[in-house]
């Protein structure tokens, strides 16, 4: 797209620096967004992307530096300023009021607060017009709580367009979308650019960046390390710019399989709500082996994970540990048998957000390893947290900071360390890399493989087929609460797994790689 030399950039960030305590979140970051351009802002979790956007929107005040929109400098720390200048943001976590309707969410703050009438008809009409022009199909009168995630994102985009945004910023917009929804989003964004909008697209998915962006700016550790046009770069270069080193792609070497560590025989659990229970599931985890569990979300993964971690006791069937039948089953008993758990949701069940790193590090062990005569041994706990921080490369200002301040990747590294330092016999890894950046993904995967090589039995539950196929020695598919027979790694082709995952039953063609 041709831009004249005189046109001021749509958005210009100049020398932005921001510190949180001793952590430098943004270090002298400068870049321009040209009019009619899609700029991808690429960086690992914790690289400072979100902080930068919060500064742009006045949620934070930068220590130094300035922001200007179409040549006009914005006053710092004023949340409304960027909005009024025509910058709209679609946040990673939507900021919609679920109990209000679509049009109410969009109208919020757009009409004078002292006005006596809310012009709802006008709002609805404008929403319908924008929906049609940008292919953002959504019913203005629907309650937000009834919408799918994809539809909610459309509402967020409409919110920005409704305010006549000329610059649109999307923070990891595809993280929550299905592939089909992501395609729709890209179509909408291309449409928006054609209509003269300029877009900043924050992501760490390289294929999306390469598909959509005109230029790519890479952030690492709070610094802008490079800006490239799409034509002059490639995914490999971007990865190495992001993580600083060429990514270590570990290769598969067959592992020696040892004795059975955990076995479930004909285990069933009741269904709860929309969640499938387990239906007669038999599964054995062997020492030194990674068992992958593939399946569409909500087919019984949660129930299986809860059974293994001791949160629910099966309504039928037996659990055996190292060949011994188990009669009593609880999280504490599971822990005492050497089951290490990486929970699916690190925010809700993996950590306690307002506890510091030390407290989170000893959540599972404070009773036996870090207490003396009923008193918690804080010195020992702190030293343990320090060890985890160093060994597992948890980037933080210190073990006394609250864990909510950590990025997802660093939080997950702490959880991983908490598990692995106990040298668990059995590791339950439920979605261990969900939402992590490439560097952290590689790290977590390498550690899990190492644990298996050292003799742990690993169950890897994931909705990402590539991840399952990359790491597992054998693969099971879970569908409608039933577990498929195991398939050896080499036979676990996407075709076979996909067929089973789609709920066609596990009979029929014997899996064989063609």
């Amino acid at each position, binding site marked *: 797209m041709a831009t004249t030399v005189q046109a001021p950039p749509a958005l210009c960030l100049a020398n932005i620096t921001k510190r949180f305590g001793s952590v430098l979140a943004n270090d002298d970051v400068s870049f321009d967004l040209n009019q009619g351009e899609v700029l991808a802002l690429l960086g690992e979790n914790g690289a400072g992307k979100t902080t930068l956007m919060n500064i742009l929107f006045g949620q934070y005040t930068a220590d130094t530096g300035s922001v200007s929109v179409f040549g006009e400098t914005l006053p710092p720390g004023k949340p409304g300023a960027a*909005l009024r200048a025509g910058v709209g943001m679609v946040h990673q976590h939507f*900021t919609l009021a*679920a*109990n209000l309707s679509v049009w*109410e969410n969009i109208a*919020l*703050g757009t009409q004078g*607060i002292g006005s006596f009438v*809310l012009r709802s008809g006008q709002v609805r009409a404008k929403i319908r017009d924008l929906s049609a022009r940008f292919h953002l199909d959504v019913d203005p009168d629907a309650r937000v709580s009834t919408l799918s995630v994809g539809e909610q994102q459309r509402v967020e985009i409409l919110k920005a367009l409704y305010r006549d945004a000329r610059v649109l910023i999307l923070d990891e917009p595809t993280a929550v979308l299905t592939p089909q929804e992501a395609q729709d989003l890209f179509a909408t964004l291309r449409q928006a650019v054609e209509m003269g909008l300029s877009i900043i697209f924050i992501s760490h998915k390289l294929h999306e960046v390469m598909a959509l962006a005109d230029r790519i700016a890479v952030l690492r550790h709070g610094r802008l390390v490079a800006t490239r046009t799409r034509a002059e770069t490639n995914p490999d270069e971007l990865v190495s710019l992001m993580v600083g080193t060429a990514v270590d792609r570990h290769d598969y070497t067959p592992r020696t399989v040892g004795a059975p560590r955990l076995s479930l025989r004909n285990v069933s659990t009741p269904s709860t709500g929309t969640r499938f229970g387990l239906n007669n599931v038999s599964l054995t985890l062997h020492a030194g082996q990674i068992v992958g569990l593939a399946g569409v979300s909500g087919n019984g993964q949660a129930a299986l994970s809860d059974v293994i971690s001791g949160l629910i006791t099966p309504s039928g069937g037996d659990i055996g540990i190292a060949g011994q039948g188990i009669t009593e089953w609880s999280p504490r008993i599971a822990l005492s048998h050497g089951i290490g758990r990486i929970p699916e949701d690190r925010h809700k069940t993996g950590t306690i957000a307002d506890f510091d790193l030390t407290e989170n590090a000893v959540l599972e062990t404070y009773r036996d390893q870090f207490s003396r005569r009923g008193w918690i041994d804080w010195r020992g706990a702190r030293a343990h947290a320090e060890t985890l921080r160093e060994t597992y490369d948890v980037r933080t200002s210190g073990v006394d900071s609250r864990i909510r301040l950590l990025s997802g990747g660093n939080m997950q590294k702490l959880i991983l360390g908490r598990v692995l330092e106990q040298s668990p016999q059995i590791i339950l890894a439920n979605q261990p890399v969900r939402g992590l950046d490439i560097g952290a993904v590689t790290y977590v995967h390498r550690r899990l493989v190492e644990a298996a090589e050292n003799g742990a039995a690993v169950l890897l539950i994931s909705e990402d087929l590539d991840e399952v196929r990359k790491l597992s020695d054998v693969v099971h598919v879970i569908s409608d609460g039933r577990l498929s027979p195991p398939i050896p790694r080499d036979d676990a082709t996407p075709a076979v797994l996909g067929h089973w995952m789609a709920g066609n039953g596990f009979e029929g063609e014997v899996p064989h790689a063609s």
Partner: protein
Amino acid sequence: MDILDILFSAAFWAATVRIASPLIFATLGELLCERAGVLNLGIEGIMVAGAFAGWIAVWAGLPLWGGVAVAFLVGAMLGGVHSVLSVPFGLSQHVVGIGMTLLATSLTFYMYRVILPEVSSPPKITAFQPLDIPVLSDIPFFGAALFSQTALTYLAFLLAAVMAYVLYRTPLGLAVRAAGERPEAVATQGLSVTAIRMGAVIVGSGLMAIGGAFLTLSAFDSFFFEMVNGRGWICIALVVFGAWRPGKAVLGALLFAAFDAFQIRLQQTPMGAFLPYQFFLMMPYILSILALIVMSRRADVPAALMVPFNKGER
């Protein structure tokens, strides 16, 4: 037989509307606070302070409406203290609320003794008198039951309509509701969550105080310490009962008031002779609890109620 007589007497319905009036003021005030995301447990104390402030202002020579205005201002001031502690400071709303109730009650007692050091029984004022609405008050039965109330009662019902209009039909009301549902949505749209919440608490507290003042300026003509007698706590329940909607909350207040008016009359029937009177006093509360259980099964609690909002926290 007796029960039917009670239900078909205009006096019973007139009493119901009268007893409901202070509850309506205070419930609407609490509803406004909670819609913006702040639980205001200072309500009981603010009602006591409002009852006293309105009454003492009239005793000191202000007109009755002046008394109402003074009560509103005193409530708003107490609400201001509550809102500073609960909104920008983000302190526990339970602790702030209970503290405000204790502070407001004690302060009232103190002011009472400072202003009236010598009196043994509180002086009387000339309270609001029933105001017959022309034409409507002449309707048989309904006229006597509904349209022969004091001006403050009419104001209570008018206020409910205004509150519903503001909440659902103005940009301000939308912002208040959104602040109670998802403050981040308000902040990202460039509005100040702090200002909206503080404003709601201040105005809401003013309304609670008018609810208290109703007792001294309209229902009765003097001030006693026990006169609020837990009405504030009832209003907290009425907000839940009304599912945070003004119209339903008014219905709840009327229902509670009807139970109350009913039990007073029931005490005078033959039944009152052999049942202890405490049993009758208990009735409205028990029936309210039952109604609450039935009504609030799937109430839409404001999602961000009691969740402080801190700008810049992640």
